[in-house]
């Protein structure tokens, strides 16, 4: 590889890729920079001084809204969605390894769940709860609404995982006297653990950022994206950008943490 020439195409594509990254990260860095405005800064360039004022302001009580509470709700909801997504997708993945009546409709229902516009789900659940007389809440109706988005991803990922999972491992375990539960616990689970962590991360971030599906279903208390959306219409200071910066950093943190876990699982597998 050393000293091998790169083609012209490579350089053209490399520049294209670089521009794409600028496109991806450019606006994000714009609000990152703007969140460090001075106390009299506005929502647009040019910068009006540099300070941490708006981050401090973020920790204080705002005129309206409840950033802390909505963050806690979204975080909790994200965790709930994560756990349920992992468990239910895993179970469904296991189920799809066998044939059963209704497997194909269920599969396509999951696919449909992926493509049905969020707002329709939101509307449907909202109206249904209203008609049935159940109070919508972030931990109830919004939870369910989020699952219709995270589960199909989880199920499709598990589907792919099990497509590639050789039944020989389980047969070997059975041959060695493992009960079905032992086979699951000592063979299957450890082997697909990194994938499950991935599904979990996926579930968490999808839920943590979900807006449209929360819209009609969150009930009394806002989730963070609803709150952020509210802030975009109710806040006129860079505190909004500070919030953007902080939530972005939070996402990065969650992602790095997850990647860390996956790498760690991989290492543990490779080394011992």
């Amino acid at each position, binding site marked *: *590889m050393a000293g091998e020439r790169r083609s012209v195409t490579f350089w053209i*594509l490399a520049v294209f*890729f670089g521009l*794409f*990254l600028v496109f991806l990260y450019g*606006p*994000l860095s*714009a*609000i990152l920079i703007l969140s460090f405005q001075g106390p009299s800064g506005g*929502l*647009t*360039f040019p910068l009006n001084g540099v300070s941490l004022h708006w981050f401090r302001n973020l920790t204080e009580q705002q005129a309206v809204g409840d950033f802390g509470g909505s963050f806690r709700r979204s975080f909790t909801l994200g965790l709930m969605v994560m756990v349920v997504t992992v468990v*239910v*997708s895993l*179970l*469904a993945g*296991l*189920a799809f390894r*066998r044939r*059963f009546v*209704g497997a194909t409709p*269920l599969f396509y*229902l999951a*696919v*449909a769940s992926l*493509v*049905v*516009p969020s*707002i*329709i789900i939101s*509307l*449907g*659940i909202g*109206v*249904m709860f209203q008609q049935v007389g159940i109070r919508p809440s972030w931990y109830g109706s919004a939870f*369910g*609404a989020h699952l*219709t988005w995270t*589960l199909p991803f989880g*199920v499709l990922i598990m*589907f*792919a995982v099990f*497509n590639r999972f050789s039944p020989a491992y389980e047969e070997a375990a059975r041959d060695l006297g493992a009960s079905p539960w032992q086979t699951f616990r000592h063979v299957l689970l450890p082997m697909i653990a990194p994938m499950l962590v991935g599904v979990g991360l996926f579930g968490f*971030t999808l839920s943590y*950022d979900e*807006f*449209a599906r929360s*819209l*009609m279903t969150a009930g009394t208390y806002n989730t963070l*994206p609803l709150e*952020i*959306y509210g802030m*975009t219409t109710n806040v006129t200071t860079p505190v909004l950008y500070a*919030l*953007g910066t902080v*939530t*972005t950093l939070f*996402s*990065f943190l969650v*992602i790095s943490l997850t990647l860390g876990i996956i790498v760690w699982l991989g290492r543990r597998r490779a080394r011992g």
Partner: protein
Amino acid sequence: MAIAVEQPAASPARPAGARLVSVLGRLAAYLQAAPLALILGVFLLAPILMIVAVSFWDYDFARLYPDFVLTNYAETLGSWVTWRTYLNTLKYAAIVWALTLFIGFWVAYFIAFHVRTATMQTVLFLVCTVPFLTSNIIRMISWIPVLGRNGLVNATLIEMGLVSAPVEWLLYSDFAVVLAMVHLYTLFMVTPIFNTLMRIDRALIEAARDAGANGCQVLWNVVLPLAKPGMAIGTIFVVTLVMADFITVQVMSGGQSASVALMMRNQMSLLQYPAAAANAVVLLVLVLLMVAGILRVVDIRKEL
């Protein structure tokens, strides 16, 4: 797996014990599938059925009246605005699809075929992924200080003397809507295309080169046909996301443009649920037809 396929008729002499195991196995599959079926049933199927029902109800500004009227559909389908809005939404979908497909393909192609080490491929792919895991709303509004009349782009253009007055159409325009959507949704194209590209046997490329194909010919005759499934899956994602979008349209057009979902959202916020439901049904049918069309090209079960 094989167990379930087996014909019970073929094993007349099997004692009950064996059959019990098989029955338990089958039962296990149902138990394992049950949570998924239950959740999708309650939170997907039932709400959609509800919407279908409500789309025939009557309403006034405060209440819904269970009924069977066709006025919601008549008003929805009878208005030129609906058609315009659908057209507009399809226009967004088409433009965003074309752009994300173009960008997504080349980005995926670059990482898959021009980046040499697996580690670097993973790193670059992650670099593309990370912004997509942060708040969509934040990512969207982050364009405003960039594109505004006094935003970064205009300031730069003016400073460089390229324009004398700020370029108006950068923000609160279809351009802004499309730009933000491309920003939001490109990853949904990159990922599946990247996956299929990574699965292409490198020997095929060499075989093509060996047969005298130049770079373009390899791309056109080998890579593109083999990347089709990934492009189809990406298309499903992007098209359904754009068709369902309302917030990007609302924010980036400054409320000046409409999409079907935004129309629904407006109707919903004005408590016109049956009208929104009728719209939802039409939108749902349209989206499902589009997806079904794409699924004819690609068997997702096989792509997984």
